[in-house]
């Protein structure tokens, strides 16, 4: 896990793409039958069952939090503090995953925490995704001086030491969910901008864009109604994979004391809070950690699958 999680995911895709674009396929009959079958399966026929199952759990929690959570996640009962989970000696069916130091039900907090996690990660991605996409489109489409300036700024941005910027923004604006969204948003756009610019450069040369231009479409129209839909696939794939990184980063921010505010029940916060009591009540850190793993796993597996299915270059084949 690194603080540059988001960026690395992106370069992953980028380099794969760079590489894919130069590839041709023939002689395929020489590859053995089994290999061909494997390749076909990988091509996207098989659904990522594990991933979808994880995501299913996650979204059930998000949507039906009020219905399925057995208790109020914020209200504790001081007479039932640190009750262990049900299979432990002192556990009871009243609190399946136990209670925390203030007697709040861990299961309910995890279920409600899914909303917070989704809100933060989607907020971040909407924020820096849209910023990056717009700047990337402008940069790629207009080219010339505008392109140079935007890309130089992006370079400068990437050479800023990430941690310091996180620290600075978080302490200037005070720790909160909004701050996290703004901070990650400000730091994250250059990655998206670069990729969208790259896509845009090649799309610009394609016939449908030229035709649109001949037909007298305005530049804005070409950018947003002709080029953008062709970039959306890439963006969605990147976003799915980024969500996992953001959840982990949020947890790290909480650990550093710059994350969301108690008593909100964000998973990262639960993990950071519970860590202090790890030898006293192990369930306080284990279950939120498990929730994070399941969610990130779900998003990543589904993201990988989406990439293989939706990658236009693979479709062309």
């Amino acid at each position: 896990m690194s603080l540059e999680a988001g960026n690395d995911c992106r370069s992953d895709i980028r380099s794969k793409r760079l590489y894919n674009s130069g590839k041709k396929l023939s002689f395929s009959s020489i590859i053995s039958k089994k290999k061909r079958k494997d390749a076909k399966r990988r091509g996207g026929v098989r659904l990522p069952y594990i991933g979808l199952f994880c995501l299913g759990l996650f979204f059930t929690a998000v949507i039906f939090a009020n219905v399925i959570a057995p208790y109020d996640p914020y209200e504790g009962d001081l007479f039932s503090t640190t009750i262990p989970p049900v299979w432990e000696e002192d556990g009871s069916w009243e609190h399946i995953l136990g209670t925390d130091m203030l007697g709040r039900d861990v299961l309910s907090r995890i279920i409600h925490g899914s909303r917070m996690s989704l809100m933060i990660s989607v907020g971040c991605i909407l924020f820096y995704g849209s910023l990056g996409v717009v700047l990337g489109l402008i940069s790629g489409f207009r080219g010339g001086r505008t392109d140079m300036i935007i890309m130089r700024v992006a370079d400068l941005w990437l050479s800023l030491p990430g941690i310091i910027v996180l620290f600075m923004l978080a302490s200037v604006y005070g720790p909160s969910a909004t701050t996290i969204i703004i901070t990650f948003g400000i730091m994250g756009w250059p990655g998206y901008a670069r990729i969208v610019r790259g896509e845009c450069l090649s799309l610009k040369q394609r016939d449908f864009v030229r035709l649109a231009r001949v037909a007298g479409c305005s530049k804005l129209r070409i950018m947003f109604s002709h080029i953008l839909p062709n970039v959306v696939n890439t963006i969605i794939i990147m976003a799915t994979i980024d969500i996992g990184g953001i959840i982990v980063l949020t947890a790290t921010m909480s650990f550093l004391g710059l994350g969301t505010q108690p008593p909100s029940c964000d998973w990262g916060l639960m993990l950071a809070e519970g860590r202090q009591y790890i030898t006293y009540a192990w369930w306080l850190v284990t279950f939120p950690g498990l929730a994070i793993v399941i969610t990130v796993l779900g998003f990543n597996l589904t993201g990988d699958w989406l990439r293989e299915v939706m990658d236009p270059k693979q479709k062309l084949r």
Partner: protein
Amino acid sequence: MLRPVLRLCFIGTVIFMIFFIVPVSTVSAASDDTVRVGIPYDISTVNMLEIKLGSDIPVVLLMHQSLLIPHPETGERIGALAKSFEILENGKKIKVTLYQGAKFHTGDPVTAHDVKFTYDECANPSNGNLMAGALDEIEEIEVKDDHTLIFHFWEAYAPWEELMWLGICSKKYYEKVGPEKFRSNPVGSGALRFVERRIGEHVLLEVVKGYPLYDVEGYPEETYNYKYLKVITVPDDMTRLAMLETGELDLVGRIQPHQVKRLKRNKHVTIKKSDQVPSLVGIAFLPYTDPVMMDRNLCLAARYGINRQEIVDKILLGEGYPLYMYASRAELGYDPNVAYEYDLEKAREFLKKSSYKKGTPLTFTYTSMVPNAPLIAALIQQYLQRVGFTIKLQQLEEGTAATYTRNRDKRLGHMRLYEWPGSRDPDLRLRLSSLSTSDYATVTNRPRREEYDKLILAQTREMDKAKRADLIRQIQDIMSYDAIGAILYGQNMIYGMSDRVDYTWTPKEAYFPHLQRIKILK
């Protein structure tokens, strides 16, 4: 392309093997003559003259001897370098006679000139010493002869003993090597000698042979049976305790109650406790954010609405005591009879009488400096909402909160959870944060302001101990009546050590005192 990559992989594998497989034999071989103490912060300086943080004091004082030191068993102050004190002219002058024969690590004798030099340098603003302000009470220091000197105070100063802990530095050495060298390699007359400091890792000290170099009356000084003392920085609580369990550390302080359960299961770890340690956690009400916080009824509502015993039982797991007044057990003026029983009905009545409008959100600020702060904040929120308040929690980074406090910034909110590190004498605290003319006073318009201010100023100048205690009691009464905050609890000091050493906390001290008295068993 491939060959270099292959070669890289090969070299990498070799390095990997060398790194991890070969030296299995050396698992932190603990040398028998070194005692390792774990602390959560970096020692920022080893130079007595430039101390800025209170947390550096215990280590620096190991290297330097002071005029007065706390007795390791009773905690009462006794003379160390100073053989006797004589109070002259009703407290305006204090004559100090030094022991003869005390020596610095360089071999030079400790003289009155060194004492004067140390006090002058600590008071020198350009050194930024944390005692510079307090030392302004001293008008000048007069050296009578090599072993006699007189402190001239501007006015009689009752807590003068609070100024006598400064570690005496060698003037001769300082003048010989200059400030740069002195900063990196200080010389004192303490039980341990400085060896090295590595920022972020440790400070290493060596026991001085044949210490003490002079006889101190009433101080049971022993010979030390270890050679090196290593003060190791381990910022994370969990890691520090894990190291105590494996024996990588010998002594760890400030253990939180919920961590004891696991440590007790380890038979190589001994846990000790002290309840005679200054410790005070409370809520400050901040009237400059909103004048409603001055309302006496509102404060009384908060005071009666919080169940302190429950906090102590549930969060401190019994390792503490409810506190209702402005001095903790180990401090001057503590009175166990002052108490407000938890009474929800009474609290609601007081709230009804107050000018608080129902539904107005009050911001409750806390930082991570107070142990278990998020839990305590959440609990206080529950209590106060039961009374009828609306409470919004706000966590601030410690630095931000400290700056807001100093600047009386409104962003600090209506209430703040704070921890007072504690001191033996309440004088400085009273004059800085309570006196209504002080820059840091939170409350400047108490109903009985004039009387209160007069009492505070009077106790500073009252040399008679009994009379002074009486004045302090009167001050406490007014504080209790004014209700400008709620004190919550005091916490016991829990410290753990590996079974190869033994150590006992000195009562009344807040930081690791007398580390030189660690004994290696066996």
